[in-house]
C-alpha cells in the first residue's frame, strides 16, 4: 500500500516523457522561423517546440524555467546563431543538464552556419553599442539566406538522427523548391523597393536591404541596443531630410510612437514589419513572414509622402 502513490505517479511521469507518435527526435527551436523550417524539413519525424514568440524583441526573451525542462529533454536545439540568443540561451543551457545540445556538440544546430555574416565588427568596443561580435544576426529577413538556414537545419537533423536522413533530404529538397519559386515571385514583388531610402529602429534590415536594394540611412537607436537620444534623433532627422528618406521601418517588437514622431518630422511613412516569423498576424510560416514584410514595405511606398 505504501507504494501506491509512486505506482500511480510513475505512469504520469512516463507520459510526460514520452514522444508524440511518429516523432523520432525532440527539437527546441529558439525562434519561430527555425521551428517552422524544422517542421517543413522534418515533418512528423520531429517534435518541435519554440522558446521565443514572434512579437518579442529577440534580444530580450524572458528566461523561464519551463524552457529549462524543454531543453533538458531535447535531442537538438536549433539556434539562429551569430549571437542572437546571447541574452537567454546560455543561462538556460547552463542549467538544462543536457550535454548533447551544448554549443559545438552535434545536437547544437546553428542556422547561421552557411551564412556569410554582414556588419562583422572590427572592434569589440562598447562605445559602438551592443554589437554582435560574429556579425549582424538578422539574416532571416532575407529569403535567400533562408535557403542557407534550411540547409544547415537539415544537415543538423541528419546528424542527430541519421536514420531519418532520407526524410530530411527530401524535406529540404521540397522546401528549397518552394522557396525558389517564392524567391522569384518576391524579386518581382519587391522591385519597387530598389533605391528606396529608409531608416529602421534597430540595425536589423541589412540583409533584407542588400537583397532588394533598399538604401539604409540610419537607425532610431543611437547605437545598436542603445535607446535614442535627442541629439541623435536631430541628426537622424536631418540626414533623412537630406536623403529624402521615404520609409521609417518600425520592427513590431519596438515602440511605435517614436517612429511616428520621426516620420512626422520628415514626411516619411511608418511601416511595421516583423523580424521574426509570427510577429505579425497571419505569418505563422517563414514564407508568410517574408511575404508579409515585403508587401508591407511595398504597400507603404504607394502612400509614402515626398519629403
Amino acid at each position, binding site marked *: 500500500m505504501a507504494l501506491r502513490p509512486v505506482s500511480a505517479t510513475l505512469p504520469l*511521469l512516463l507520459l*510526460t*516523457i514520452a514522444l508524440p507518435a511518429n516523432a523520432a527526435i525532440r527539437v527546441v527551436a529558439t525562434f519561430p522561423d527555425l521551428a517552422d523550417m524544422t517542421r517543413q524539413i522534418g515533418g512528423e519525424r520531429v517534435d518541435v517546440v519554440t522558446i521565443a*514568440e514572434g*512579437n*518579442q*524583441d529577440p534580444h*530580450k526573451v*524572458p*528566461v*523561464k*524555467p*519551463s524552457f*529549462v*525542462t*524543454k531543453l*533538458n529533454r531535447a535531442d537538438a536545439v536549433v*539556434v539562429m*546563431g*551569430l*549571437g542572437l540568443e546571447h541574452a537567454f540561451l*546560455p*543561462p*538556460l543551457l*547552463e*542549467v*538544462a*543538464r543536457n*550535454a548533447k545540445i551544448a*554549443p*559545438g*556538440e*552535434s545536437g*547544437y*544546430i*546553428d542556422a*547561421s*552556419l*552557411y*551564412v*556569410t*555574416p554582414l556588419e562583422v565588427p572590427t572592434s569589440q568596443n*562598447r562605445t559602438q553599442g*551592443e554589437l554582435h*561580435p*560574429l556579425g549582424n544576426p538578422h539574416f532571416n529577413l532575407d529569403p*535567400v539566406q533562408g*535557403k*542557407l538556414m534550411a*540547409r544547415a537545419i537539415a544537415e*543538423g537533423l541528419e*546528424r542527430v538522427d541519421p536514420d531519418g536522413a532520407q526524410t530530411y533530404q527530401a524535406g529540404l529538397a521540397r522546401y*528549397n523548391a518552394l522557396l525558389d519559386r517564392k524567391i522569384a515571385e518576391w524579386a518581382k514583388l519587391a522591385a519597387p523597393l530598389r533605391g528606396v531610402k529608409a531608416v529602421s529602429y534597430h540595425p536589423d534590415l541589412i540583409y533584407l536591404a542588400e537583397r532588394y536594394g533598399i538604401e539604409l540611412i540610419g537607425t532610431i537607436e543611437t547605437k545598436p*541596443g*542603445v*535607446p535614442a537620444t535627442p541629439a541623435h534623433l536631430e541628426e537622424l532627422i536631418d540626414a533623412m531630410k537630406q536623403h529624402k528618406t521615404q520609409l521609417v521601418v518600425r520592427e*513590431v*517588437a*519596438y*515602440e511605435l510612437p517614436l517612429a511616428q514622431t520621426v516620420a512626422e518630422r520628415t514626411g516619411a511613412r511608418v511601416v511595421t514589419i516583423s523580424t521574426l516569423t509570427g510577429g505579425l498576424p497571419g505569418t505563422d510560416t517563414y514564407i508568410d513572414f517574408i511575404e508579409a514584410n515585403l508587401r508591407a514595405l511595398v504597400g507603404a511606398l504607394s502612400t509614402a509622402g515626398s519629403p
Partner: protein
Amino acid sequence: MDRHRIARVGLAAGLASCACFAPGVNARAADASDVKALQQELAATQGELAQTKSELQETKDTLNALKQRVEALAAAAPAGPSLAPGTTAHLAPVNADNPAISFVVDTTARSNSHGDGGSPVDGGNGFALRSGELFISAPIDPFLRGYATINGNTTQGFDIEEAAVVTTALPWNLTVKGGRYFADVGRLSHWHDEALPFVDRPPSLNRIIGGESRAEGVEVSWLAPTEQFIQITGGIYNSIGEQAGTVLNNTFGVGSYSELTYLVHPTTYFDLTDTFNVEVGGTYFAVPKDNDRHLYGVDVTFRHQPGTSGFYQGTTLGIEWMWNNQRFANQTPQFNAAAAPLLTNPALPFDAITNPQVFGSRFNTRQGGYAYFESFFGRRFSAGLRVDYSEAPADNVNTSLLYIAPLSPNADQILTYSMFVTWMPSEFHRLRLQLDQIVARGEPDDQRITLQWTAFLGSHSHGFTTR
C-alpha cells in the same frame, strides 16, 4: 567569333567585286568560271556564317545556364574555408587560457534623516563604493566549470566571496557544486548585490539569514526529467550567511556532523497563461546540534511578461517569508569572564562552550520577509515598491564571545517601506534612486535616500539564478 565572320564576309565581297570589274575580253570565259567559283565560295561562307550564328546562340545559352547555376550554387554554398570539418556552429573565438572576466563598479550616495547611521555601505550618510566585484568564470574541462567572485567595498578590502566548481556532465540530471558560494536559500539571498532589483538587500534577509547566503560546503541539485519544472537542491555546509559569523562555528570549527548546516530547497514553476507565470520555492535549513537552528522559508514570484513593444513591458511581484528558530546563548552586558579561559584552552570539549550551564541559553523564534513589485516601462525604465518586516532576537546575538551586549529591546521589530526607480541608459549601465522609510519600534522613524550608480565592465552575468 564576330571578327572572323566579318573577315570572311568581307573577303567574299572583295573577291566578288574584283571579279565583276576585272578588265579584258579574253578573260570573259575564264571570268565566268571564276564568278561561279566565287559564288560557290560565297555560298559556303554564308553557310559557315549561319553555323557560326547557331554556335554563338548555343554558347550564349550555355553561358546563361552556367550563370544561373553559379547563382544557385552561391545561394547554397557553404562559407568554405571558414568552416572546419565537423563544424556545427559559428562560435565566438575563445582562448582556453582566458576565462570570461568582468568587473562591476557599484557606487552609492546616501543621506538619512538621522544624520549618520554608521558606514555608508550599510546605511550611513555619504558616498561609498558599495561593491567592486570581479567575476571570473570558465569551463575547466568537459566535466566541470568554475567561477569566482572577488569583492571589496569602502569598509573592507577584497574578499573571496565565491570560489566554486560545478559539474556539467553528471547523469540523472544531477549537478554538484563545491567550494565557497551563495547557498541556494530562498530567492534573493543568493543574488549578488548588483543584481538585486533594489539598492539594498531586503533588511529581513540581512537580519535573519545574515545578508548573502554565503556558505562553504557541497550542494547537489536535481532537475526532474518532466515537462513540469521541478528542481530540488540539497546542501551540507559549515555554515550559512549569519552563521558564518557566529562564535561556535567560526572560532572553533565544526565539531561533528550534527553541527553542520543542512539545506533542502525545492522549486517549481507554472505558466499560468502565455504571459503570466509563477515560481514557488520552499527552504528549510537546520543545524541539528550546536545552536539547534531551524529556518523555514517560502518564496513566491509572480511575473507578467507580455514581451511586446508597448510602453508597459511587464511586472514582477516577489514575496519571501522566513521563520527562524534557534538557541542563543544568554547574554549579559559585561565582560564574559567565563569565556576567556575557554578561548585559550583548546583541550576543552567544544560542547562546553554551548553548554547552557556555562552560558545559559534560550530559544528565540523570529520571522520576517518582504514583498515587492517592480514594473518595467519602455526599454530602460522600471519602478517599484517594497515592504519589509523583520524581527531581531530580543537579545542581540553578539559575534564576540568576550563582549556581549544586548540590543535595545525596542528595536527588535523593524518595518521598512521603500520606493525605487531605475533607469538603464544601456544594458551595462544603471542608475537607481531609492527612498526608504524605516519604522523601528520605540525608535524615531528614519528616512533615507540613496542614489546608486552601477556599471558593468566586460560580459557580466550570474546566469539563470538571477533571472
